[in-house]
């Protein structure tokens, strides 16, 4: 017996590829541009969103029959905000260095459209288990893109991965740098993320033509 039914596993797999929140729905672009200059920040952001969206979707789903329709957006905001504060506090306590670079963006999770979008579109109408899977799936889809972008930006921009010099030392001119290779400073700045995301969108749509919208 499969661990998940086909329908359930689609909830996780769809957002990873053909219904990716960033490349197909074009949500959550703000944080994808802002924090992906380093792989480490991308990974932490992905994990934070995974937590917030997974737990948040379950909470909203459990409350879906008691939330007054009139104030449902406010209730959703309170749930996201509370979870984000929890993430922020935990980071401050256990990953202080990281929390200093990330605190602004962790706060931005509150306004990340993916989260409100999944609450409104899915969790309000489905049971907790399905909502949980949907939350995890979308957060993973978001995280995968973040990590891909972070990987290329850190590698090409700083010549490092997770802060480790993988291409040699640019100052001492070892490794690739001995051959005249230079880091591309452009990759560090946010517009570079747009280009990388653009290339991912291009590759994805040329592999699966069904994704191309009619003009």
């Amino acid at each position, binding site marked *: 017996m499969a661990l998940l039914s086909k329908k359930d596993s689609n909830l996780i797999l769809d957002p990873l590829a053909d219904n990716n929140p960033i490349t197909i729905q074009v949500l959550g672009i703000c944080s994808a541009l802002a924090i992906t200059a380093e792989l480490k920040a991308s990974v932490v952001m992905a994990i934070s969103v995974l937590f917030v969206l997974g737990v948040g979707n379950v909470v909203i789903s459990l409350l879906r*029959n*008691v*939330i*007054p*329709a*009139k*104030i449902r957006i*406010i*209730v959703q905001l*309170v749930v996201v905000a*509370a979870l984000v*504060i*929890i993430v922020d*506090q*935990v980071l*401050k*306590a*256990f990953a*202080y*260095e990281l929390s200093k670079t990330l605190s602004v963006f962790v706060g931005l999770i509150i306004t990340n459209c993916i989260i409100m979008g999944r609450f409104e579109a899915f969790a309000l109408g489905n049971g907790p288990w399905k909502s949980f899977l949907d939350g995890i799936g979308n957060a993973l889809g978001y995280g995968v893109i973040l990590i891909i972008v972070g990987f290329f930006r850190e590698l090409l921009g700083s010549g490092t991965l997770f802060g480790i010099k993988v291409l040699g030392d640019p*100052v*001492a001119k070892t490794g690739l740098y001995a051959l005249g290779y230079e880091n591309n400073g452009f990759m560090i*700045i946010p517009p570079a993320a747009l280009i990388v995301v653009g290339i991912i969108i291009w590759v994805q749509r040329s592999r699966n033509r069904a994704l191309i919208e009619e003009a």
Partner: protein
Amino acid sequence: MAINTEKNSYTVVFAVVMVIVVGSVLAFLASALKPKVDENQRFEKQQNILYAMGVNDNEGEGSVSFIPTSEVESEFSKYIKKQLVIEGTEVKEKQDAYLIDMKKQLSTIKSGGSAELPLLIGEKDGKEYYIIPLYGKGLWDAIWGFMSVDANMVVQGVFFDHKGETPGLGANINQRFFMDDFEGESILDGNSYAGIAVAKGNGDPLNENKDDNEVDALAGATITGNGISAMIKDALKLYKPYLETIRKK
């Protein structure tokens, strides 16, 4: 029993209960994690202070690297020999003087009260470092730091940080290429405590002249730079009486 979620009274009760529940969960969490967060902030301050007296893991010309958090506590007590508090003309030792909040002290002074000014004396390789805390404002928000001088009033090292300066411009005050310029600069101009100005177009971009009381400014960060100059000047005004007593003439 189906609840009528459309009723106004229900909406109000729901909102109230939600706020109380969420509020108490967050309050509980914040107080449970507070000791850990405070400890992190204390370590950070120790790292910054040690950085200003040249105790750090910097390699070559790259980025700022502090000594690791796991070692900072023992290194701090190894290098920092005395923690002083200057109150008017009185100077006395005080435990954990480095934790004194400069912002509070400066506002006490502004309102005419007498403040406790912390000053740390560090020792490395037989040489004494007098470490002065700095606090001021940049373009958007607070900037702060530490500056260490020797008995000749020559800067041995600085550390600056900021709350919300513009990334890529003013935020670069905590980068090596800016902070390293301060090393070796004299804060004296003749006999007056002139401080060090962050100057545009001082004709000394490589910072070879160490007696001009100037370092080269950051492009695009004029107001942050002026904030640094003012912050150093203000601190020297306060610490001048004490520095006069230790200065080698």
